[in-house]
Structure formats: structure tokens, C-alpha cells
């Protein structure tokens, strides 16, 4: 069923006249497809770089995907080109930038099959206020600033809010850049 859906999606994208050879996301390097969202889980397959995958869901660092070699889990940072499952992002399949990328993952598939693009945002004409020019010409709004100050939370409130959802603080050290090149990118 999944392979058929993938084929259908590919056909739709081809009919739309785009250069996309792959649907959804693709791997950016060779990656192990795991049976569960864990590095210790068994490997179901090894996917080469540029393998097309459909993202189904995310659990922490892991995406569950469907691929030509079956379903499984892989590290989310080893794929590109998808907004993931149930995304609100753009769902049209259009090549962009270097890779053959299309947006929307599963949501994109649904959009194309029904003939619409429910996830696609309205064209941004008349978008309020935050273009480059708007920012350069901005004049202060003191009344809005006062509103901002009035909306600020207090520490006690914030702690209760966290406790309600059982958000427990953790000790984690800041990360260094992996290497100097990162800073120059």
C-alpha cells in the first residue's frame, strides 16, 4: 500500500511538470533503517544517500519513515526536504535549491491526491508589517510596548505551568561548535 502511494505521489508530481525525481524527503547520507527509535534497535535495512522516504511521525531524534525498502526509523537529522507528518507547511511538490526536494511529506501526499493544497499558505501579499522596508521605517508604538510589559508572566506562574505538565528541569551543559567551519557557514 505504501509503495503504491509513493508511486501515485511520484506520478502526480511528474504530471505537475516539476523536475522532482523523488517524493517527500530523502536521506542525505547512508543510514540504518531501524526497527525501533533507538540506536540499539535492530537494523531492518541500510538506505543509501538520496533515498526517497516519506516521514510518518517523529519521536525525539527519530523519524518513522516509509521507503521502497519498507518502514522503519532513522535519525531525523539524516533526512531533508520534508515538513514531516501532519505539518502545516507548504505541501506542493516543487524542486527547490540544490536537491530535488518537495515539501509536505504525508500532508503533501494527501493534498495532491485530493487535488488541492490545503497546507499551502495564502500568497503573502499585504503581509502585515515585517518586510525589510517596514522594519527600516518602523516608528515606536509605546502603547503596544506597555501591553507587552503587562502580559509578562511571573516566575511562580511559570513554575506552576511547568509542573502542571510534569516538565522537570534537567542539568545540561551548553554545546561547543563541532568545528570551526560551522561558524563560517
Amino acid at each position, binding site marked *: 500500500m505504501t509503495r503504491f502511494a509513493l508511486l501515485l505521489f511520484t506520478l502526480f508530481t511528474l504530471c505537475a511538470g516539476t523536475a522532482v525525481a523523488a517524493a517527500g524527503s530523502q536521506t542525505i547520507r547512508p543510514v540504518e533503517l531501524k526497527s525501533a527509535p533507538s540506536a540499539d534497535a535492530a537494523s531492518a535495512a541500510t538506505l543509501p544517500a538520496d533515498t526517497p522516504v516519506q516521514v510518518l511521525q517523529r519521536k525525539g531524534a527519530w523519524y518513522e519513515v516509509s521507503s521502497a525498502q519498507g518502514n522503519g526509523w532513522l535519525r531525523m537529522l539524516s533526512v531533508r526536504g520534508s515538513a514531516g507528518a501532519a505539518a502545516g507547511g507548504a505541501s506542493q511538490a516543487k524542486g527547490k535549491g540544490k536537491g530535488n526536494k518537495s515539501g509536505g511529506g504525508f500532508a503533501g501526499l494527501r493534498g495532491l491526491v485530493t487535488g488541492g493544497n490545503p497546507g499551502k499558505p495564502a500568497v*503573502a501579499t499585504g503581509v502585515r508589517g515585517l518586510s525589510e522596508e517596514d522594519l*527600516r521605517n518602523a516608528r515606536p508604538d509605546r502603547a503596544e510596548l506597555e501591553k507587552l510589559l503587562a502580559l509578562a508572566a511571573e516566575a511562580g506562574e511559570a513554575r506552576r505551568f511547568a509542573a502542571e505538565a510534569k516538565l522537570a528541569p534537567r542539568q545540561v551543559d551548553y*554545546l561547543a561548535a563541532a568545528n570551526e567551519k560551522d561558524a563560517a557557514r
Partner: protein
Amino acid sequence: MNRLRLLFVATAFAFALPAAALPLPGFGKLKSMLGHAKDVGEVSEPREIELGADISANLLGAAPLLDDAATQQYVNKVGLWLALQTERPDLPWRFGVLDSANVNAFAAPGGHVFITRGLLARLRSEDELAGVLAHEIAHVLRRHHLVAIQKSGKRGLMTDLVGVASERSGKGENWNKVISAGTELYARGLDKGDELEADRMGVVIAARGGYDAFGLPAVLQTLDAIHADDGSIALMFKTHPSPAARLLALDRAMGTQFDRYAGDGNHNRRFKPAAP
């Protein structure tokens, strides 16, 4: 604090004098000596907050607050909870949702953080919201905007940032130049290194708050999939490294040691997807 103020005043006078008349290093060198956020604050905290508030007033002049108190309060609680996990928990942290379909987020000095309605609408969980807010909080912690304003500057900017005598003085023409320089940064963007640093700190701050450390990467994946022609995200793409570059940098920095900070997602039940 008073000794520090004297130091500021002395430094300000040193800068106010023409460099050629004194056996001082060039202004550029002085700037770079003082430019790093880790140095003892050249700018007092009250002044930093005042500056951030005035820059925020400009931002709000461009796009006002979303008229939805429940959403504003929710974002403030998530934001403050995160800020309480950092080295500056006592800043007067203020978070605001801007009523704009643009996809973007902003930070201003002294604890001011903004997210647009347009970006909020594309988030799928409180984890993702935490990731975005944590990135902006990092900009405040590292004083990225202050450092950038100083770097962009003229001597006048330094004099007024540092301030002379009382808090209310020094708010003349030069102060307005500082505010303009600060607002202009949103159109120009920070150094790419600052953005990558904010990403690295952001995932840590989110994890400290009990959130899924991969919330911010998940947002970056969403942004990566938005079409480049989409006008609502044009400015964000222009002023930040590409989502792909940011994801690559985070992957290298995080490795596998953050896998354990996934969180159980209970808190995501209270997240209501916003209207775009």
C-alpha cells in the same frame, strides 16, 4: 555598580576624543577588544533593558501584538520557564506574539522575545515552540544584538550606550541612532555564527526545561520544506543561514548525546495549533 559606572564614563570619554590626538590603539581595535559578549558588560543592565524596550517599541510599530490574551500568556509562560533555566533568570523576560503572517522570530536586548503569528501557526507542539523561544533567549543571553550594534557603530553609539551620569540622560539623537541600528539588524541579520550559536544553545535550554531537544531541529525541517518563493518567509531566509546548513551544524554539535532528552510529550496536549 558605581565603580563600573565610573569605568564606563572613563571609557566613554576615551572614545569621545579623537584617536589621532592620543597614543591609543585605533578605534577598530578598541571595538574588537570590547566587542565580545563575555567581557564585563560595557552596558549596564538597566540600559540594556531600556534599549531592548525601545527597539521592541519599533518592532511593535511595524506589527502589533496579536489580540489573543490566552495565547500571549501561554507563550509567556513557556518562555519564562525556559529563561529560568539559564544564567540570566532575573531579567524582566517579556514574550510577545506579533500579529503578522510573516514567518519569523526576534529578540531584543534585555529579555524581549517575539514570535510571529505566521511562525506560531506552523508549529506542531509545545516542544517546537520551546525550541524557537530558546533560540531567541540565547541571542539575549549572548548579547548578540548589543555586540552587533557596537560593531556597526560610530563613537557616538558607544557614548550613549554606556551612558553618562543618570539613567535618563544621554537619550538624545545618538540614542535614536542606537535604536535605529538595533531595529535595522532585523532587516540585515546577525552574523551567521551568532545564529548557529543560538541554535546550539537553544537545544540545550529547551532540554533544560524538560522539553524534547529535537523540537528546534523539527522546526528547521519545517522551514526547510517551505518553498523559497513564499513571501512570508523571505526575510527570515535572507537574514539567517539556510535551514539545511543549520541542521547540519546542529547534527555535528549534538551527535547522539541528546537522544535521551526526548521528553514524554505530555505537555504537548495543551498546545493548540494557532490560526495562520
